[in-house]
Each structure stands twice: as C-alpha cells, then as structure tokens.
C-alpha cells in the first residue's frame, strides 16, 4: 500500500467527514474510519488517527471531554466481539454492527447526560441513533470501494 496515498486518503476522509458532520447534526462520520482501520488491522495508522478523531469530535462538541472515548471504545469492543462470529468484510456483518452501534450511540448519550447534568432528549437521541445506524453501512461500502486507490497495482 502506498504510504503517501494512504495518508492523503485519510486526510481527505477527515475533511469530507467534517463537511458531512456540518450538514448533519449529531452524525459521527469519522466512526466508519475506525471500522476500516480495524478491518485492515492497520494499528500503526490507528495510533495517530484515533487520538485525532477523538480530539476532533471532542473539540467540535459541547459536552465535557470523555463521551467520545466511551463511544469509540464501544465501537472497538463491538467490532472485536463481532469478529469472533462473522467475516468482517461481509456487508451483513457491517449492517449488524451498525445496528448495535446505533444502540450504543443511544446508550452513551444516556450515560453521559446525567454525568454532566444535561437534559436527556429521548426523541432527539433516538433520531440521531437511527441516522448513525443507517449511515454506517452505506458509508462503509462507498469508502471500501475507494480504498483500492491507495494500493499498488500488484497488491490489487
């Protein structure tokens, strides 16, 4: 895999994700990047991308620091659990994972609201969880298709 192309791909991904998040309140467009990193077992890039994702989301947000760490930990744990049972490249796996992540999104919001004395809006959070769950499989499919660009011809 071309290192330079890979870094360019991730930078472009982050810029697009920020733009998309500006258009869709509450959506985490960077979460799909973590799933791709876990699928590719690209722990070297994860070392700098994951803290950057956390800082970006915490910086853009209005909650006290910590919520995004729990949310991204939930993504990693659910992915690792799913890996025991399914083939991770499978669309069905991603679909099931995104459904679980929709529930996790709701759970994290419910958990963090009383910790910070913020009113918890059930309807609003449910809507956002649903949008997050619907977004992930399609974004994953689209991004996986573009990942081939970062590889050398012989790797393809």
């Amino acid at each position, binding site marked *: 895999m071309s290192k330079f192309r890979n870094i360019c791909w991730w930078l472009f991904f*982050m*810029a697009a994700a*920020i*733009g998309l*998040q*500006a258009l869709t*309140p*509450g*959506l*985490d467009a960077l979460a799909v990047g973590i799933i791709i990193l876990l699928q590719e077992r690209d722990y070297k890039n994860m070392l700098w991308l994951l803290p950057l994702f*956390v*800082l*970006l*989301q*915490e*910086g*853009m*947000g*209005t*909650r*006290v*620091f*910590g*919520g*995004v*760490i*729990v*949310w991204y*930990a939930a993504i990693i744990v659910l992915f690792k659990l799913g890996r025991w049972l399914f083939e991770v490249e499978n669309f069905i796996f991603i679909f099931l994972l995104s459904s679980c992540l929709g529930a996790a*999104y709701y759970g*994290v*919001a419910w958990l963090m*609201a009383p*910790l910070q004395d*913020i*009113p918890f*809006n059930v309807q*609003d959070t449910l809507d*956002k969880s649903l949008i*997050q769950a619907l977004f992930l499989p399609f974004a994953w499919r689209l991004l996986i298709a573009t990942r081939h660009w970062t590889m050398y011809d012989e790797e393809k």
Partner: protein
Amino acid sequence: MTLRRILILAGVLLILFLGMYSWNQRTRTLDELAASVGLELSGAVLKAMRATEDVVSGFWERYFDLVGVREENERLKARLADLESRLLANGEDLAELKRLRALIQLPVDKSWRPLGARVLAGRMGPNAVLDSITISRGYATGGRPGTPLVTHLGLVGRVLRASAHTATALLLTDPGSRIAVFSQNSRAPGILTGQGTDRMLEVNFVQRDAGVKQGEVLITSGLDGKYPKGIPVARVLSVAPSDYTQFMAIYAEPLVDLHNLEEVLLLEPTGIAPPTDEPEGPPPVFVGPPLPPAAVTP
C-alpha cells in the same frame, strides 16, 4: 484471555477513565486541548469549504449559465448573461450589505465593540448535544468564552468554548441558557430560560402583578453582567398565572430566526465603563433640615 482477566482489564480501564474524567472536570485541561486542536482544525476545514463553495457558486453563476447560447447571437447573449449574473451577484452583495448595515445599528454603548463573524455550521458530531453553532472567530479574534452574539433582530446567545480562530456558541434556546431580561413596556424583570430547539422560551420569576402583556418584547436587563442592557431577545406569546408557583407562567419566542443564521455580531467587552445618565444643568437645591450651627470653641 480468560473471563477473569477481561473483567480485571475492564475494571482498570473504567477506573482510569473515571480518574481522567474527574481530573478534567476540575482542571478542564483536556477540554482546552480538544478545543485548541479539534475545534481549530474543523474550523479551518469548514472555512476552506465555505470559501470553495463561494468560488464554485460564483463560477457556476458567471460561466455555466452561458452554456447553450446560440452561436449567431452569442456575443449579445453573453453580454446579457454577463450583466444578469453581475446583477445577481450585486443583488446578493446588496442583500448582505443591508444585513450588515442593520447589524451595526445596535443599541450598545462604548463598553461593547461589535465584531462580525460568519456562521460556519450548526451542531457538529455526536458530542454536540447542546443547541449551538460554530462561528468563524476564536479567542484570538474577539470570540472569547462568554462573549454575547447578536444580529440586527436581537440576541442569539453567547460563546461557550473557543479555539484561536473558531468558536462554539450556545444559543438562547438551549435548556442551559439563562438570561436576565426586562419586559420592554412594563419593565418587569425575569429570567429567560431555553427549553430546546423549536420549543418556546420560558420566563421565570415574574411577579403576578407585573402587568406583562402578550406581544411585548423582552430585552436584556444587563443585571447578570453577561449581556449589555437593552438588546431585544424575545416576544411574549402567552401570559397566565402559574398553577404551581407564585409567579407568572410566561412563554416567549426568540426574535432571531436561529435556523437561518448567516452572519452574527460578537459584542466584545472593551473595558470602558458605560456612560452614566447624569442630569443636565445645575445640581438640584438641597432640601432638608437646617445645617447645625458651627461649633464655637472657647
């Protein structure tokens, strides 16, 4: 890995997380780090995107409108389209100029300096749970936390957290927002509280004999020391005695359309004391008991 080890690892991670969380609650170090890195980076990306959007839309209007024009009258139609596109562009500029001119006609004194800012985005990301917007000014450019935000129609909110060149502002509709207000005609004081997006604002602690009327405008009283006095905030929708408290139950709507904000003004404190309303002419004659006789010393 055995179940026992997994449980121990989970417990250790939980303790570490709670330790980090409570340490950050006290020191706000991680919040500041996230604001300086995350908010600044996302602000830079959004500013670049907005600039590109402006260029592309300008290019689209000026060039692609001309595609399909017949060759025999190309010159005339091109000129016409060019003039039309210029007119459109000028129309947008004029509309912007009108908005900006209206923005600077605010009832604020010398103790507040107005600074224009562009709204970059609304709520962004899973962590943005409060009613907020992202603006194109940060603590280095006049958008320090606590700075009030207004438009020519009235109050918008205040800056919640800021990086060097980007800031997140809390809107007055957020349930955590509290603003000290007066009703414009009856001068009844109260506390305006947000109740969430698309929900009415609530005015608390207004006395039953206050005489607030439906349709009356609420203005900032300045008593909280956070907002300048006299900024219009909301219009009263309903007034009734409360069933649960000794005060009135008053509901209001914001004067500003918070869904369609493009530019806002930040009111930066200048540090100059506001002018006092001193009466003109000579001081009034003292009316009171006669002065005591001067003490005579032997």
